[in-house]
């Protein structure tokens, strides 16, 4: 049975409604925070703003704390309520989602760290265009994945799954051209390696957004679509 984002507010126990609502709210807050971290880390690099990059690195603890807090809430709900059906799927999806979001935070941190290296080297490096493009792409994916979670929107989630393929292609093309630059100009190798690390981190953010979208489909439809080709999903989800 498909569910809507109203579903979790109709229990006889109002307290239970609040607990589940709280989980969703906290997850969205955590999502908002890591989304901002990715955005700030990339902007810091593109604008040469080392203070912003430092700030991103410092906010990593906040993300970790949120993950622990939300997971504790989930454990409490499991122990006290023994949720079933869509309630159970919500709790599981939230646990899985916090783990993905925490890793997005780690990737943002990695981007900030490499941004600092690049800013300090004071050398204009190749690959900034690629970083800008890829970051716009994966940030949209992340935003859409979070929106699909908030709205229980499987169509949007499916769209995110499709996006991931083009992000992967974009990433491969970008690294290929950067390898060429490194061969042409060995002095640029150090900075290009930092750029490649950043691209890799962005590509990973896309993967986590992809995972989030899968959690949404599990939550709403009860289907575990991990390791499933998005093309096959179009049929089974009746696009």
């Amino acid at each position: 049975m498909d569910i809507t984002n109203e579903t979790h507010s109709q229990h006889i126990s109002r307290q239970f409604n609040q607990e589940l609502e709280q989980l969703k709210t906290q997850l969205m807050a955590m999502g908002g925070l890591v989304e901002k971290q990715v955005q700030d880390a990339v902007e810091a690099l593109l604008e040469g703003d080392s203070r912003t990059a430092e700030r991103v690195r410092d906010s990593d603890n906040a993300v970790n704390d949120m993950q622990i807090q939300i997971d504790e809430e989930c454990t409490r709900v499991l122990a006290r309520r023994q949720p079933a059906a869509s309630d159970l799927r919500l709790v599981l999806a939230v646990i899985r989602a916090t783990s993905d979001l925490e890793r997005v935070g780690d990737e943002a941190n990695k981007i900030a760290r490499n941004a600092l290296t690049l800013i300090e080297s004071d050398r204009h490096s190749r690959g900034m265009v690629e970083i800008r493009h890829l970051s716009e792409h994966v940030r949209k994916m992340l935003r859409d994945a979070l929106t699909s979670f908030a709205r229980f929107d499987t169509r949007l989630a499916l769209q995110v799954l499709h996006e991931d393929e083009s992000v992967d292609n974009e990433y491969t093309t970008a690294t290929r051209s950067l390898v060429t630059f490194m061969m042409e100009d060995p002095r640029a190798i150090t900075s290009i390696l930092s750029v490649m690390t950043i691209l890799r981190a962005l590509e990973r953010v896309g993967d986590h957004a992809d995972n989030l979208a899968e959690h949404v489909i599990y939550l709403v439809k009860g289907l575990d679509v991990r390791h499933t080709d998005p093309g096959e999903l179009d049929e089974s989800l009746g696009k």
Partner: protein
Amino acid sequence: MSAASFSAAETQRFSSAVVDFPSTSSCFDIEALSLAYEGKPALRDLTLRVPRHRVTAFIGPSGCGKSTLLRGLNRLHDLNDQVTRNGHIRLEGQDIHGRDVDVAELRRRVGMVFQTPNPFPMSIYENVAYGVRLQGVKRKRELDEIVEWALQSAALWEEVKADLHASAWTLSGGQQQRLVIARTLAVRPDVLLLDEPASALDPISTLKIEELIRGLKSQLTLILVTHNMQQAARVSDYTAFLHAGELVEYAPTDTLFTNPRLRRTEDYITGRVG
């Protein structure tokens, strides 16, 4: 979705589509069963197959018909002439209401355990031996063997073997319930019907009964009626959700408790306003 908008055809489609096993492995075959008390419908056009050597749970709110259905399976309603029935119940292919069916033999094959333990006012040994003696077993050695086997099957032997001739009333509630199960098992039934078997027991005794239920399914078919949904989720292989005398959804327990097909089931198992 209201009860009225749920057609019999829809019930049929879901109940048969989800639980899929070959008809040769069905123990009970219930077909278009309707039952009424003094003209008031208690079961409406209910069709389902209960698989052999599995635990099947019937869940649903009070008055949904789950106990009525369970009692119908060994013809306990025969004792009440206010009950009218339509449809068929087949046990291993044979209609249990057929002319040539011996009701006493049916009740031996389909044993029943109730909510409150009801040991006879006699010793532990005699409780278990009672039904076996009625079947004509007289030799002491044979009786001893059956009593030991039944008590072991009911996971009670170790606790009572030192004093088999103590009164059954000396046992705790949980032990009494296992004694009643041993008494039922002693006559070698094919099916064990359990009507809220653990609802009067403490959590540890409840777990022992649940453990017992799981262990017994290699020997016989078990059907469990329970208000405790976690219990149904823990012990059963298949779960049927009944509401207002209708079978709403029947599915493998794993599916029913993680991803039910119908809103009414979802609302019930998650405690929502229906």
